[in-house]
């Protein structure tokens, strides 16, 4: 029996283990299970996030297409997932506004709504490992994609009468970290969403139930979850998250702050560690995304970066969204390195780790989006290689 813990601290039996299952010798000869109320995975499908003390990573190498199942959306929180009673929930908007207001969840759902499919990525989303035995989930599993629905923040800005002189606002969560980030008011007018739904259903507790801030293309931490308060201001607050954390050294003693946008990135999710492949035809598959806009193209190299060929992009290619790419390749069985790079509509091209570090005075840190290489051994074992 697999026990899983809910975000509200209860355990339940998540499924049935293989040993409990009695497979009929011929399933066509026994009536199956009648229609039910809530479906479950096949017990053969073992999908799980990879938790640490502070985050949990999406199993990118086990997924297909671009939508992340909501229960596998990555988690990053700063003192756990709070249990919020939606009946008690209120969002307060105040500060540089004509009419300080409070909105219940039901209020928010009455406003004009909007849906969009986009990625959400933590800006601390890069790990490497010297022995190469590291899967996409470990390397960059802090990115996931959903169809989000909610009310545009601009709609609420109109409702409360935001002062045209406001340049920043504070977004505050109702979790036990009482998470705070300063956000540009212009982003609020542009495309920010107060999301109350994710992939058709209510936002999951781990993703900010009942309401989260969604800033398409911007680093995950700024997309404050369990949102309880917005204060309009004319300066940033320099909260701990945007000073001690989520800032990065870029050389010459400089530290970049308020680096919101996620740069273009891609990763080959197949073949990738821990996969082992055979020689012959291989469809190289992966996802690419950019916080700057649409992916313009993805290029694949099967010769360690010497030459690059265009990959096929799965339509529709959406703005600030994971897009699936594919490249058909015949492997001759000789050891080689394969890799992908994303180029977005602004012309930004995903760099190697060396290029990235060179541009930042040799520093690692947040916003690392390097090309990820996979080394194919002659026995077909695929291993990670830093670029």
């Amino acid at each position: 029996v697999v026990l899983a813990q809910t975000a509200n601290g209860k355990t339940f039996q998540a499924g049935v283990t293989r040993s409990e299952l009695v497979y009929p010798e011929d399933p066509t000869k026994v009536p199956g299970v009648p229609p039910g109320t809530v479906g479950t995975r096949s017990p053969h499908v073992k999908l799980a996030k990879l938790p640490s003390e502070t985050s949990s990573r999406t199993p990118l190498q086990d997924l297909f297409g671009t939508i992340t199942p909501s229960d596998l959306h990555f988690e990053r929180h700063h003192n756990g997932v709070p249990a919020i009673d939606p009946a008690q929930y209120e969002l307060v908007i105040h500060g540089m506004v004509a009419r300080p207001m409070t909105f219940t969840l039901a209020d928010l759902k009455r406003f004009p709504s909007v849906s969009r499919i986009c990625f959400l990525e933590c800006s601390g989303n890069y790990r490497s490992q010297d022995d190469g035995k590291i899967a996409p989930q470990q390397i960059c599993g802090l990115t996931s994609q959903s169809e989000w629905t909610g009310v545009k923040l601009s709609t609420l800005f109109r409702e409360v009468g935001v002062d045209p002189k406001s340049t920043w606002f504070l977004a505050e969560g109702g979790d036990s970290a009482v998470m705070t980030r300063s956000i540009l008011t212009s982003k609020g007018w542009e495309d920010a969403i107060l999301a109350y739904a994710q992939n058709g259903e209510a936002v999951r507790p781990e993703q900010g139930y009942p309401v989260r801030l969604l800033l398409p293309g911007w680093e995950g931490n700024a997309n404050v979850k369990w949102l309880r308060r917005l204060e309009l201001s004319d300066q940033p607050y320099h909260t701990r998250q945007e000073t001690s954390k989520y800032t990065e050294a870029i050389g010459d003693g400089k530290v970049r702050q308020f680096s919101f946008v996620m740069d273009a990135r891609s990763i080959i999710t197949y073949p990738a560690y821990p996969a082992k492949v055979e020689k012959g035809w291989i469809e190289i598959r992966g996802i690419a995304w950019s916080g700057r806009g649409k992916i313009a193209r993805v290029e694949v190299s099967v010769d360690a970066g010497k030459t690059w060929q265009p990959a096929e992009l799965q339509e529709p290619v959406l703005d600030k969204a994971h897009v699936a790419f594919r490249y058909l390749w015949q492997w001759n069985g000789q050891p080689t390195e394969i890799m992908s790079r994303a180029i977005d509509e602004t012309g930004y091209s995903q760099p190697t780790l060396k290029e990235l570090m060179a541009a930042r005075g040799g520093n690692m840190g947040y916003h690392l989006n390097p090309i990820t290489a996979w080394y194919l051994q002659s026995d077909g074992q695929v291993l990670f290689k830093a670029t």
Partner: protein
Amino acid sequence: ARPDSLNWPKTFGFGKPAAAQQIARLDTDVRPDGKGLPSGSGTARRGKTIYAAKCASCHGATGVEGPNDQLVIVQGLTDPATKAKNKVIGNYWPYATTVFDYIKRAMPFNQPGSLTNQEVYSLTAFLLHANGLIKETDIINAQTLPKVLMPNRDSFVPDDRLNTPAVR
């Protein structure tokens, strides 16, 4: 703007005015200019006792040992790797007000939101002093805290990536 937003009413009339009291209860943030700091004050000396009782178990007896985040700078490090990790309040944080704001909202980690303003002022004073930024006897309050100069403040630069497709 959405194509139809021109036809939208001035207000939809959903939600209700926020009561001053409700705002006050939530509005505990502190800005670098001191806006938001409550009345009260503290000193490093008073903070030391509170720190030992409520913080040392996670951050170490002197704020260096952990197991959780290092809060106090180690002076005179020579090894570059150790030096790079030594990014703390004293040599990294740009504003002293953030120390108050963060401790008030999030610490102690196992009992967030449990400290009085007086306790937070004293813990802030204690950490600023331990980091060599103020004297042990300095009184930290709404007037003095915003004035504490943080050595790393000028290192912070805004995002310069977006006006170019170049890697930065």
